[in-house]
């Protein structure tokens, strides 16, 4: 009787559409580095080696982003230097999802062609292919640009491998210290000293066109704000008022600086300075400390640190002038605000259970996420793709630089100058 019942149920099920039967499985993934392969590039030219190991630089860029896991050369079943030779089965076999192949060909005394192709292994098709001219001097920049294109194609996020960072180092020299303002590639290569002084240098800031740096120098035993053009080394003083001149930051149109001026009475306040005319306009008048001003990307507000509520918190005031409003309410200490270039997030130094750490706040959702793990982390700065932050942390007695993804998941130590490294700032995208 039971069997009969069962058969009838089964028959009903069959009538209901046998062909539609299928397993339904829920899969939950986590962000993991994507396995890729950067095949050593081919070389055609005078001399045994190409001017720069292009594949190695791309490999390092992608790996440091934390989003890719390039496989070692020893795992590669084939090493093509041309797209036509790529065998998708070979790469699928070693579980690699994307492959980069390319070559460097010398075309003149100091002229080369850098060519690369990016392939989707399981989709079995080419995703990118470019050919770029370069000289020995520009080869590294061209390679970073290639890495940017590959990164953006594979993640949908703009790459920042071609950008630069500026920071200050302090090295013991005799009785005192030698302070240097340094600009390097975002991977720490190509360090150039922009300014050197036996007096402290502080608060570097990039101009929006990435051609100039503003900074505070204590030369002559007083604080002054300078703006220096990187290519020429020429600089001019923009503010040397009595008292403190500090914390410069460029406006989005590059014509103004928000600065902290102490004035005669020593009350630190936010001012807006026109670079050409050197005229200043006062924005805050509170007797509390108001400092560390920074512009919003739309140019409408200036965010700053103020302790008017008793302890440091982040406020903002309309750039044209008005009443400041408080932004941070979580924790007793929030300072040194910096907005992401896409305007969606705010990074700051936040006191997290006694540790000074970097935190990121979503300006819309208002939730705070702590992204660093040190005890005295400071000076956060967003990369121009709003996806990575650089900051200074301490390792022993020295300051070192670290980068972290905006979601806090991927952290990298940056190889930077020797000595005590501090106050890193990430350049905007270079404008060609």
């Amino acid at each position: 009787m039971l069997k009969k019942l069962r058969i009838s149920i089964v028959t009903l099920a069959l009538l209901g559409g046998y062909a539609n039967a299928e397993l339904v499985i829920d899969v939950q993934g986590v962000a993991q580095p994507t396995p890729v392969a950067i095949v050593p590039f081919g070389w055609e030219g005078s001399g045994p080696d190409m001017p720069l190991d292009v594949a190695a630089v791309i490999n390092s860029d992608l790996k440091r982003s934390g989003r890719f896991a390039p496989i070692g050369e020893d795992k590669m079943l084939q090493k093509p230097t041309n797209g036509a030779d790529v065998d998708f089965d070979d790469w699928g076999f070693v579980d690699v999802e994307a492959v980069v192949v390319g070559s460097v060909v010398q075309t003149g005394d100091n002229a080369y062609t850098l060519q690369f192709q990016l392939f989707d292994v399981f989709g079995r098709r080419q995703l990118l292919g470019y050919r770029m001219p370069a000289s020995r001097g520009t080869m590294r920049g061209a390679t970073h640009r290639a890495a940017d294109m590959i990164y953006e194609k594979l993640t949908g996020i703009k790459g920042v491998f071609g950008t630069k960072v500026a920071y200050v180092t302090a090295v013991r020299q005799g009785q005192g210290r030698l302070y240097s303002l340094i600009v390097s590639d975002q991977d720490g290569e190509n360090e150039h000293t922009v300014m050197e002084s036996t007096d402290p240098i502080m608060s570097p800031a990039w101009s929006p066109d990435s051609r100039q740096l503003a900074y505070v120098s204590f030369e002559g035993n007083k604080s002054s704000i300078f703006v220096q053009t990187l290519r020429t080394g020429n600089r001019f003083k923009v503010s040397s008022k009595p008292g403190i001149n500090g914390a410069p930051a460029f406006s989005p149109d590059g014509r103004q600086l928000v600065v902290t001026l102490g004035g005669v009475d020593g009350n630190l306040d936010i001012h807006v300075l026109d670079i050409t005319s050197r005229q200043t306009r006062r924005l805050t008048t509170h007797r509390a400390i108001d400092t560390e001003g920074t512009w919003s990307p739309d140019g409408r507000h200036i965010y700053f640190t103020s302790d008017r509520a008793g302890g440091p918190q982040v406020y903002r005031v309309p750039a044209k002038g008005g009443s400041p409003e408080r932004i941070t309410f979580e924790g007793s200490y929030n300072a040194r605000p910096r907005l992401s270039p896409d305007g969606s997030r705010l990074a700051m130094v936040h006191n997290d259970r006694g540790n000074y750490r970097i935190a990121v706040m979503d300006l819309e959702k208002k939730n705070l996420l702590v992204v660093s793990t040190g005890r005295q982390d400071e000076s956060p700065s967003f990369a121009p793709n709003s996806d990575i932050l650089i900051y200074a942390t301490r390792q022993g007695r020295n300051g070192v630089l670290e980068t972290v993804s905006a979601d806090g998941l991927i952290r990298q130590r940056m190889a930077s100058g020797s000595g005590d490294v501090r106050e890193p700032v990430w350049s905007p995208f270079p404008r060609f």
Partner: protein
Amino acid sequence: MIRDANNIIPVSMAVLLHVLLLGSMIVAFDLSRTMPITPLAIQATLVTEIPDVTPPRVVRPEPEPEPEPVVEEPEPEPEPEPEPDNSEELRREAEEEKRRLDALVEKERLEKIRQQEEAEQERKEKEAAERKERDEAERKKREEEDKEKKRVEAEQKRQDDIRRQREENERLRRDAEATARADEIEAEEDRFAAVDSGELAVYMAQIRQKIERNWSAPASAGAELKCSVRVRQVPGGEVVGVTILNCNGDDAVKRSVEAAIYRSSPLPEPSDPNLFDRNILLNLSIRQ
């Protein structure tokens, strides 16, 4: 010599003279000859026929070569009477002439007969040829008809064969269907049994874990990501098709999903073969 056109006038005049002489002297002279002769041949008709040297063909009308010379001599001129002393010689000459004439006439007659026989022969040949043609045509026609008939027969047979084959196939198909249905029912029953025993949950978990392990979700895969993907596999677990049905992720996410599935091929196999399904629907999201 007689047939030579240049001699026509003198010859005709000589002949005429002799005939007139003979006719006036011998009324009923019975010529002893070996060959019979029709009176018609001797009379005027012969005279008029002789100048016409080319005998008329039965088949082909021919333009008269030179009728003019005959016309130009409408009236035979009465010849002056010869002397009567020459009667014996004349008679001999007449005889000779007569013999020549007879020979001519005979020749003429024979020629005519020959021509007639020739014509007859030709006609007969033509007839024979025509008959042969007709026969040939008949034969061909019959052959054609035979061929056609055979063709139609063959075609008919072919159609019959096809129809028979179709019927056979139909019967086989129906049989196969019935068997398949019976098999399906049995498999479904087994499946229910397997599901009941929890083996299905294990199988699904194995697939899920393998794909999760192999999925490198990119940074752009946000918390709100939802992708549904149909996976087709063959027994053994080899993935033979991946179709993304609905996905709110960008290209990098879609690529990563495809890669995750292919990297997981061959998929784990169930302990109970009845649980195997060719189609799997995956619902992908990001672990929160």
